[in-house]
């Protein structure tokens, strides 16, 4: 390898290599970096600036002040409840659906033949592939509190319930977790399926010959091979859940009162829907800081660096 490297550098070792390196950098990474800086970094900087002003619904700034942060720490009575709910929501959806159920789906569908497995995987990817407005519309029809709703029809006619159920009022958090869970499980399912397919056949055969049953095979062969994907999915989906609220907004608008208002939705309601842009900016900043902290911690904890930084070739 080293000799070939030398060969390559030798052949290209002329003066243009530094320039070439730089142009390559520019061509390949330039657009991505430009777009990212423009639409991620700069808005955050603006957001930090806005959080120290009193920007309101008319986009006028009259003074620089720290009153938004004072509000966050002193004046906001809803915040503890919102933060608590966010923890519960993120943890439950992650633990029940995104990771666990994704794993279950991947394991079960790969145990079937390709066509059937593919069919079920296809079904479970459908929620993610449908437009969000439509997906939530279907949910609203399913949980419709009258007996027109599909869920109530099923419960009344098959399970013999007497009164129709109103999930939106009685169990909004569960509803939101399940609705988001269906979407979240598909991502894990895809990644775990690809990983399972990548396990060399001979390992499984060897385990079988050694007398391993299905469960043992899963425990000793499959799961260790899935260690990286599971870590990645956990971190990635934690961030997704922390940050996105589109489905919750469409489904319950934040729930009866503040019941399903997760932190991101709370920021949106304040930052956008009611015109208190300065306060919303301060709240958003906290979320960004926490998100970055989780990302970096997760990177360290799950050692994602080793997974992703597989150095390839260094020839320029």
């Amino acid at each position, binding site marked *: 390898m080293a000799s070939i490297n030398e060969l390559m550098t030798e052949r290209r070792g002329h003066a243009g290599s530094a320039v070439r390196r730089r142009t390559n950098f520019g061509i390949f990474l330039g657009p991505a970096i430009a777009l990212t800086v423009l639409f991620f970094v700069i808005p955050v900087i603006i957001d930090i600036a806005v959080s120290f002003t009193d920007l309101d*619904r*008319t*986009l*006028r700034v009259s003074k620089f002040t720290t009153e938004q942060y004072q*509000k966050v720490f002193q*004046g*906001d*009575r809803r915040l503890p409840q919102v933060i608590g709910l966010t923890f519960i929501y993120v943890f439950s959806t992650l633990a029940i659906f995104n990771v666990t159920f994704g794993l279950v789906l991947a394991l079960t569908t790969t145990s079937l033949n390709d066509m059937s497995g593919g069919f079920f995987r296809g079904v479970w990817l459908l929620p993610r592939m449908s437009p969000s407005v439509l997906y939530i519309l279907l949910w609203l029809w399913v949980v419709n*509190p009258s007996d027109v709703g599909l869920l109530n029809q099923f419960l009344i006619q098959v399970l013999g319930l007497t009164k129709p159920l*109103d999930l*939106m*009022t009685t169990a909004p958090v569960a509803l939101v977790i399940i609705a988001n869970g269906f979407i979240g499980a598909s991502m894990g399912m895809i990644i775990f399926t690809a990983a399972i397919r990548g396990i060399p056949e001979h390992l499984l055969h060897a385990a079988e010959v050694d007398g391993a049953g299905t469960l043992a095979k899963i425990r000793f062969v499959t799961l260790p091979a899935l260690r990286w994907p599971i870590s990645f999915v956990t971190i990635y989906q934690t961030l997704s859940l922390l940050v996105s609220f589109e489905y919750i907004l469409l489904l*319950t608008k934040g729930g*009866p*009162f*503040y*019941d399903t208002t997760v932190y991101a939705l709370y920021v949106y309601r304040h930052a956008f*829907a*009611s*015109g*208190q842009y300065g*306060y919303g900016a301060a709240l958003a900043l906290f979320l960004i800081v926490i998100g970055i902290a989780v990302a970096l911690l997760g990177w360290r904890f799950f050692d994602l660096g080793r997974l992703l930084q597989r150095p390839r070739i260094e020839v320029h």
Partner: protein
Amino acid sequence: MRHWKAGTVTLLIAAVVNGSAAIIASTPALAQDTVKLELWSRQDPSGPLRPGNVVKGAERLNKELAGEGSGKRAEVVVHESPAPGFDDDALQLLKVFGIGQGPDVFIVAHEWICAFQQEGFALKLDDYIAKDPQHFGTIFPSLWQSAKCPDGIYGVPQDAEARMFFYNKKLLRVAGYDNAFIDAMPARTLSGELTMDELIDIAKQVRGKTKAQYGILHRPNKGPDYIMVFQSYGNSFADRGTGKLLLEHDKLAAAFGWFDRGVKEGVIPANNTAMEFDALRKAFYTGNAAFWMYGIWDLGTYAFPTYGLPKDEAAFFADWGWIAAPAAKRGGQAGSLTHPIIYAVAAHAADPELAVRVLGHASAADLNTDHAVATTHLGIKPEQLNDPRYAAAWPLARATELLKITKFLPNNPQFGDLNGILYTALQGVETGRLSGPQAADFVIDEASASLKGVIVK
């Protein structure tokens, strides 16, 4: 030589032609100076003629201008904003003005006008209105109140309506009430005898003795209607002297308590705020609910065309009816709410005088009657009552009676935000998360934290 000469000749001819054209074009008699006025409107199934009348008004004005010999013409370009409600639309419009791209004329719900005035986005119209008494002079004086900010008039009233409690007489009959009682309900409400509590009792009896699923229904989003209940319990939300927002704890708690009681008695569905608008309408108009707190325009927009309620006055009042918002206590004052929509002119408008003249024509009695009759809104001028179409639209005539006791939302620039807080608290009360007094505390906390200059008593 010949070419050169031909060239010069052509040049000379061109110069003469162009020169004379320029001279001709600059003479006022033939000059056409079209002023483009951008009209910002919210697309709204109950108000398509709001922008439409402005366009027609411009046409009429152009004829008038031609008659005056002026070369000016007005061209109205309508921009329809897809906002889901007047409040969202106002917020979007404030942002648009904030970046300096505001329209010239805009349609807005009246309580927002002072938000625009405060930032200098809206034009003070007193002088312009005084110059055009022919169009503006006869508009109901009380309607001008809704377009006023502390230092003047900032809007032209476009329509009015009345909000009330519709009720289903058929259901009441099945529930055991006799015709005398049912027919006397409106009068008893106006005299202060029928109270908010009795409303709950009637609804409860309907729920108990009929198959109706709901007793009292109200809108499932932020809006003006439920403010009627708060007003019945004495909340005016604005301090008389200063115009600042006023929150009185006990009165708020009493009003929330009414909703609380309604839910506990099974009369107001706990998930009212989560139901869909059309589900609520359907529930009432198909006889599944006793009372529906909404407004008169719903008749023209949905009840008659979609649900087939009888259009004939006698037939309608045989099975349906409405009462004003009852008083809180016996002997109190019944009320109603009117939520006028107004036309406003931007402070930076290209040609303010032209814009106001267009609005003057748009407010012509016949155009306004078009809108009023088509969508069952109330008119703005007394002469509209003489229009046979208006007279034939009996809902309008009957609802005009409510104008005598009607109240408005306060024109405070922050009222829109306060209304949002009230609605959230209402949802909390109905879903059982908050009690009446807790809801009052919530409103006062949130308002004090996020709004400026709120007086709390």
